[in-house]
């Protein structure tokens, strides 16, 4: 088989994409910023920076720190608020040669529903991602995605406002992500984004101050990839809706781990800061990988990680 014959298209809710690549919210501006370096027609979708009901200045600086094979960020959802956004920004998104997914954040169920409804009503927006898992704004780590009841309420409320594809973004900072995933599915999510950043902190040992103005931040990049692959694997076994896998994807091999674990699409965030050509390279190499194995469509390998290990030997204590 020839790589050009391979079908990389995926379906995420009602969203039909030629390429299985999302660009992670908050990492890719509105796509325009990266357009000089990447052909946006060769990516699946840009997920916009999360927007809130009211304008937010965001967190004090510094907002970024590099860590081993990753980074911490604490942007704090800087954004102009939904009104200004609808008036000034959204119309430009129609120019993008890829799908544009709006991202909505908030601080109450009402906030989410309001912002979601206003944004989803716009033609320029193909789908909505509900960011209920931003680790940089909530108090004491209590985000919506850390509590099953809050998750159910906020997803149900957002669901009621639109028929467009609703992707709910989950947090890894929980004891049981599969349980939260089930709740989000029952409450009406069309798809799940797995995972948002992992909570972390770094301290400057010269000044004794936290390296982030917000004290704590969200860890992303290759460092968290094993955590994300497992989260996708567990969530895929718990729900029937598609998953947009993310966390540290930089190479085709990384992307394949997520597909095999059960993701229907992948998202690249921090990887774009290493090299903006990554999404296009992954699309090309995925096609070659599948062609070399005579697999006609990417969809055929989703969730196909083979865990049929036998454990041939055991002692009494191993049953423990």
């Amino acid at each position, binding site marked *: 088989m020839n790589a050009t014959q391979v079908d990389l298209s995926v379906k995420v809710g009602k969203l039909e994409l030629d390429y299985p690549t999302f660009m992670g919210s*908050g*990492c*890719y501006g509105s796509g325009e910023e990266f357009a*000089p370096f990447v052909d946006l027609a060769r990516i699946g979708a840009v997920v916009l920076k999360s927007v809130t009901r009211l304008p937010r200045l965001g967190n004090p*600086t510094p907002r970024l720190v590099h860590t081993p094979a990753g980074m911490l960020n604490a942007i704090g959802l800087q954004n102009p608020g939904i009104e200004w956004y609808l008036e000034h920004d959204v119309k430009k998104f129609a120019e993008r040669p890829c799908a544009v997914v709006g991202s909505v954040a908030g601080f109450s169920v009402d906030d989410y529903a309001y912002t979601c409804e206003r944004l989803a009503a716009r033609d320029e927006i193909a789908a909505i991602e509900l960011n209920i898992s931003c680790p940089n704004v909530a108090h004491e780590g209590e985000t919506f995605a850390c509590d099953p009841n809050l998750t159910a309420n906020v997803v149900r409320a957002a669901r009621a406002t639109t028929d467009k594809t609703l992707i709910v973004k989950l947090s890894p900072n929980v004891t049981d992500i599969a349980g939260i995933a089930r709740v989000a599915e029952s409450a009406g999510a069309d798809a799940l984004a797995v995972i948002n950043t992992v909570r972390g902190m770094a301290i400057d040992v010269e000044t004794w101050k936290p390296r982030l103005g917000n004290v704590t931040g969200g860890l992303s*990049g290759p460092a968290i990839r094993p955590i994300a692959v497992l989260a996708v694997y567990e969530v895929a076994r718990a729900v029937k809706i598609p998953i947009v896998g993310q966390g540290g994807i*930089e190479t085709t091999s990384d992307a394949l781990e997520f597909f095999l674990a059960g993701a229907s699409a992948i998202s690249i965030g921090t990887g*774009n*800061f290493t090299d903006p050509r990554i999404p296009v390279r992954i699309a090309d190499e995925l096609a070659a990988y599948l062609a070399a194995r005579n697999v006609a469509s990417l969809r055929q390998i989703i969730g196909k990680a083979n865990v049929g290990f036998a454990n041939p030997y055991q002692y009494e204590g191993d049953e423990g």
Partner: protein
Amino acid sequence: MLVGLHAPELVRVTRPGHFAMVIPPSGERAATALGIYEAHGERASLLFFEVGKRTRELGSLKIGDQLGLLGPLGNGFTLGQARNVAIVAGGVGIASVLLPAQAALAAGARVRLFYGARTKELLVERERFANEGCEVLVATDDGSDGHRGYVTDLLANAHDKPDLILACGPTPMLRAVARVAGEINVPAQLSLEETFACGVGGCWGCVVPLVRTSAQAPSFPPAERQGSDVVYARICKEGPVFWAHELRW
């Protein structure tokens, strides 16, 4: 470490104060922001100290290696009609001020370089600036060369008042330059440094507070809608060069 690049396309569009995001040869680390040091004909160059993982990896490049970079990026220095330019560079800040020095000299201006570093050995490339036609005044923290103390002391005590100050260096130095510029009442442009992620305006990680009246951050709601006259502008996109008086440090 000075890395020369065969990059005619880059040279063609580079303006003084521009920077580039240099793609790490081996992944797993964010690209590195580096000022464009030289840009002439087919050759551009990058100047850096090997201080951390990424710059050390760049330092191990061999002649003939390919290097990916995004650039030129950002808004650089504007010389306007300046006739007497003071350039203040601290440490590796020197990497971003050769191009503006050359441009000012080419326009016939007098250019003084006030150049500070911790110690003599870190005063790299000073002959280069002298050869270009700059007057070079140096300061070191340990007094191993030139004035012992801050480079801004030299600026504050300079007899002949410049009509424009351009500066690049560590944030404490830039704050001092801003203060001195205010005292002697000379407009100053500062090239800021901050940890970058994307370098192209996509992540809002590299911001600095500006007075909102600035035309440099137009795509944000006006002050009266915010309850604050401050806006966080992106150093990589709206900067890295800002007018000192617009900063709300």
